[in-house]
């Protein structure tokens, strides 16, 4: 009983303590977020490159750079590039940290200690960072910089990182999504050239489909499921001549009939295979899309939609596959000039708005993104397409026939990528989920206004 009363006494004390703690905690709850908010408002005053003494007499500066690179050969290429930078500007040293995401960058920014430079894998957060003041506007820095960036960097690559006339990042390599096709299987099916329209792709896919005596599919022609591999980029607009939003920011998925036609093409091909067979294929091969179990390399599918890095994987894992790369076919009814475009995605390099050395960070960024040798070496290491005109001309892989149509598509002014908006990809995510429902028959064309409303709400919520 003594123990019980002792416990009761403790409980009373605890209650009293809690009562005393309550106002303290409440005050903390109010003060700390407000303090965090206060410390995170405003941005560093901008600096000019003109004021940077690039000669050897400049006081030593050490910058922090984060990169999404995680493979050793990529990190080696990053380090080699930074060594070249240091050789050119001996006073400038950049410390590199790998395996960093945009999420890490955002959290560091909130904590008030972001890296000076961020090499990001995609433009997903570009508008968010620009709107939120997380990254520096490079426009005036470019104007005062030592390189004429507009003449050096490819126009579509620069355009992808421009918003409201301001340049928020510089591209360091990029991705172009193309159609990979197995030449041997094409020849066996009597197909002489890769398809140029989605109807042709559908017809070729049927010819290339092989079933065993039990009716089971042993070889698929083309798997269009939105959740498969990189297929979401098929439905991002460039192959159907559509943009997610019109000039006034209203979603077009319910009003532009090409979106519906694209979904019909997708659904009809899935129905041709049967959802059971094709879903099994997706579930079986999706975890192996980038390893030795890749179905295109194994001959389980004759055509595949993929990025340029896939060439390195095929070379490593299945070097005997004889394949070609062509532009992804476009929706029927497009102008003939539409064929040859590609969904292109940039890997941007940002300068943190809170950097204490914005001009120096820009100098490093400009060097990394415009130096021909650096861009070429990085492109080779990342298995990506160079983002400058000279780098493409000098690239050792430019003569590789696999890259020919890829480089052309990358330079094609009609090429563009996923929408860059304040939702940070939430709208595309919703669109992808909708297409998945469409493919499984849980949604139909009559639901297009619903997804349009949802996308509109997502962007509106992000904007407000």
């Amino acid at each position, binding site marked *: 009983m003594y123990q019980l009363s002792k416990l009761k006494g403790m409980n009373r004390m605890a209650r009293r303590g809690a009562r005393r703690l309550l106002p303290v905690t409440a005050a903390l*709850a109010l003060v700390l977020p407000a303090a965090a908010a206060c410390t995170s408002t405003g941005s560093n005053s901008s600096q000019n490159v003109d004021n940077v003494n690039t000669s050897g007499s400049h006081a030593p500066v050490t910058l922090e750079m984060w990169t999404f690179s995680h493979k050793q050969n990529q990190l080696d290429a990053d380090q080699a590039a930074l060594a070249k930078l240091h050789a050119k500007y001996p006073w400038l040293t950049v410390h590199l940290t790998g395996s960093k995401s945009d999420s890490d960058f955002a959290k560091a*920014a909130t904590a008030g200690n972001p890296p000076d430079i961020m090499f990001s894998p995609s433009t997903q957060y570009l508008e968010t960072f620009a709107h*939120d*003041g997380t990254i520096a506007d490079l426009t005036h820095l470019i104007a005062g910089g030592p390189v004429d960036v507009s003449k050096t960097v490819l126009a579509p690559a620069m355009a992808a990182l421009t918003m409201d006339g301001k340049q928020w990042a510089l591209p360091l390599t990029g991705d172009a999504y193309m159609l990979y096709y197995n030449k041997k299987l094409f020849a066996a099916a009597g197909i002489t050239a890769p398809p140029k329209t989605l109807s042709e792709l559908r017809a070729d896919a049927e010819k290339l489909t092989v079933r065993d005596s039990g009716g089971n599919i042993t070889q698929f022609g083309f798997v269009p499921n939105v959740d498969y591999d990189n297929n979401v980029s098929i439905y991002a607009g460039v192959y159907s001549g559509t943009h997610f939003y019109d000039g006034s920011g209203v979603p077009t998925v319910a009003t532009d009939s090409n979106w519906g036609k694209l979904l019909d093409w997708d659904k009809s091909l899935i129905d041709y295979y049967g959802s059971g067979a094709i879903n099994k294929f997706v579930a079986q091969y999706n975890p192996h899309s*980038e390893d030795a179990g890749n179905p295109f390399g194994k001959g389980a599918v004759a055509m595949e939609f993929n990025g340029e890095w896939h060439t390195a994987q095929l070379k490593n894992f299945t070097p005997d596959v004889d394949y070609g790369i062509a532009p992804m076919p476009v929706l029927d009814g497009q102008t003939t000039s539409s064929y040859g475009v590609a969904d292109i995605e940039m890997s941007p390099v940002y300068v943190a708005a809170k950097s204490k050395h914005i001009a120096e960070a820009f100098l490093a960024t400009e060097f990394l993104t415009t130096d021909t040798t650096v861009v070429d070496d990085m492109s080779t290491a990342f298995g990506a397409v160079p983002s400058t005109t000279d780098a493409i001309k000098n690239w050792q892989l430019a003569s590789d026939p696999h890259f020919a149509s890829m480089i052309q598509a990358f330079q094609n002014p009609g090429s563009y990528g996923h929408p860059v908006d304040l939702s940070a990809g939430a709208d595309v995510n919703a669109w992808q989920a909708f297409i998945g429902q469409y493919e499984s028959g849980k949604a139909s064309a009559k639901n297009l206004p619903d997804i349009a409303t949802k996308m509109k709400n997502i962007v509106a919520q992000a904007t407000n």
Partner: protein
Amino acid sequence: MPAVADTSAVVAEQTAAPPPRRRGRSRRKSPTRTAKPAVLLFLSPLILGIAIFKLYPIAAGVYYSMTDFHVGSYQPVHFVGLDNYRHVLSSSSDAWTAGRNTLWLLIFLVPAQTLWAMFVAWLVLRIRRGQALFRTIFFLPAMVPLVASALAFVVLLNPAGPLNHALSWVGITGPGWFGDPSWAKPSLVIVAVWGCGKIMILFLAGMLNVPRTLYEAAEIDGASAWRQFWHITLPSISPVTFFAVITGMIATFQYFTEAYVISASSNNNSGADRLIGYPQNSTLFATSEIYKQGFVFFKTGYASAIAVLVFLAVFACTIVFIWGTRRSYGYGGESQ
């Protein structure tokens, strides 16, 4: 039958309410004024720890849920009142999908793992030889890290994996498991059931505490094994069942790791964060949605609003469950 009823009466006697508590003020003197600072000093690490790591995050979460705060943003933070809550509850929000999926888990996962753990414990107790070995075997999965077990099941349940291969031997075409929207959640239940060793150990301890005399009396009265379980074991271990269900329920509201790892490994060409809820949002749960909104789309205020709603849902469910069981069995608080 009457014999069994008598046994139940014995169980009732064994689990009878404790003696009434003593009412009135405790005779123990409260700490003297000189002792109070010392008490507070010794408690201060705990108090500070709770304040900084528990109370502050909760209070800050509630505060952020009423702001437009974005992680990484240098824009001023605005108070938006209940706007985030309105967006969460709007009909086009994915939060509804996450809520439905979480409810599905509550209905199927919690009973499945509780009943399976109870069954395994009962089974292990009935093994005469090698009990320790089987106890260890059934507990081992609980020692495997969640990520490792999730990845193991990704391989095991691949449509072309060993399980479907084995099923084909008996003429069954296995489903797509994690890759099939219809099978993704049941597959997660299988993973959870496989790893329920900790609950099994609790049931085992509870069953070992049941007096042998009750079973001996029941056997003399001719009660079958099932009747012994139903009328002796089950009532006797009901506090353990209560604990297993309530902690299972709370853990299900917080269910994240397995779903995240499994969806992330479903396509090695996309970033893990882009695949949350794969396939077709069938594995999008409450915490996945919080993570997605907060750490993928950086909508910290919005994610905080979902977190607050999940907290309220957990709190409400726990209170209802405790209230219900207290009325029926006297658990979860003072005896009736």
